[in-house]
């Protein structure tokens, strides 16, 4: 049954793609937050750099990373509007350094494998 096979493959691919992106997105968010951003500006900046991220994933992720101590935030007014600005915390910087090293190792290994 080609139709169901194709739908199965699409579902499977989407699931695997999500798994693959999940960890990398966190690294991208942490790296981008070396400079201060609020949620929407971070999303548009990531999209401009080629990494589209759904707001339903990004905004809750920011709060989770802050709860984990990797980010710190403050409410501030900009253009007559209160916004919550996030930036990398001290422990976030240490973790990012380790994650980037790990990512580099994985990329090198994958390059050798394929």
């Amino acid at each position, binding site marked *: 049954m080609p139709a169901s096979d194709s739908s199965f493959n699409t579902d499977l691919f989407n699931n695997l793609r999500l798994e693959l992106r999940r960890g990398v997105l966190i690294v991208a968010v942490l790296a981008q937050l070396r400079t201060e951003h*609020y*949620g*929407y*500006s971070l*999303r*548009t900046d990531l999209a401009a750099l080629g990494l589209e991220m759904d*707001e*339903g*994933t990004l*905004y*809750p992720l920011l*709060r*989770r990373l802050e*709860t984990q101590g990797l980010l710190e935030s403050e409410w501030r007014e900009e253009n007559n*509007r*209160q*916004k*919550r600005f996030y930036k990398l915390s001290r422990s976030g910087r240490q973790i990012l350094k380790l994650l980037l090293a790990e990512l580099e190792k994985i990329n090198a290994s994958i390059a050798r494998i394929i």
Partner: protein
Amino acid sequence: MNTPLLERYLTAIKFWLPKAQRDDIAAELGANLHEELDDRAAAAGRPLTDEEIAGILKEHGSPALVASRYQHENPRVTFGRQIIGPLLFPFYWIALKATLALLLIPAIVPALVWNANFNPNREIAHVFYRVAELALPALFVVTIIFALIDLALRRFHLLERWTSDWDPRALPTPSGQKRLVRRSSSIAGIIVQSIFIIWWMGHSSLPIFVFNKSGAHLQFASLWASLHLPVLLIAFVCLAQHWMNLVKPQWRWLPPLTGIITSLAGIIILYPFINSPPLITITDSHGVALYGRQASTIHAALSSAVLGLWFGLMIFAIIYAWRLAWIAWEAFPHQSNDLHRNDTAGI
């Protein structure tokens, strides 16, 4: 820039969020959405229409779905793997507390308050016994029910399916959302009705009281047996109403409408009991009537109680009808004001 549609959306999201984080999350989300709407309006070179704003909010997700994404800060129940996720945990916690209160308070308080020969050791042992006897099975049953709901939600993507065809323009106004059917009231209703249904289903036969010394039987008339199925159906209707109000809290008309239907059903069901043959009989072991005077006294008391209940249901039906009419009357002026505000709103 302010848009009533966005305010409605944020208020609807707040309804689904835990109290402690509600305002903070909504404020942050609101700031981000305002920025996005401003950006889109700037790109279009004109203010966005209500239809375009509704499209952007729809892309963002239904209020329940958006709120569910923020529930990672909530605790969850895990046993090797996740049993009850963070989305359902606040509901589970309320349900658990309400169930335990419903079961334990009536079981424990009388023992502690009205016992003339109060013996601390015996009473403490009694409390522990009651906790073990009632609370542990209740904890187990409530946990299993929520674990099954959680499993169904995740396995069949029910939340996504239920909220796929929503329309931001159909959301009630912030002032209208303040008058939503309370989540805690729906959950409490679900628990009470579920416990009642389980109890009622387990008592399909009428009780017979036997007096030890004389061997006399106090028996309810067979007419009482006809109550069993209708009362069960009424309880299921009430249970369905609480579930529907949990999912659709803006349906304020549903509780009074259900109240009218169930009260009228009660009036019809109880009608045969008024001027009925004896509602109880007291007989010996061979079925010969005994204690005629006492039996007629109990019958008279029961008849009065049934008549009182019958008139009570009539009063309830009138009160519910009044509430329903009030909600219907309220809907018209609010709706027209909101439409006017939407028409004049710009980005």
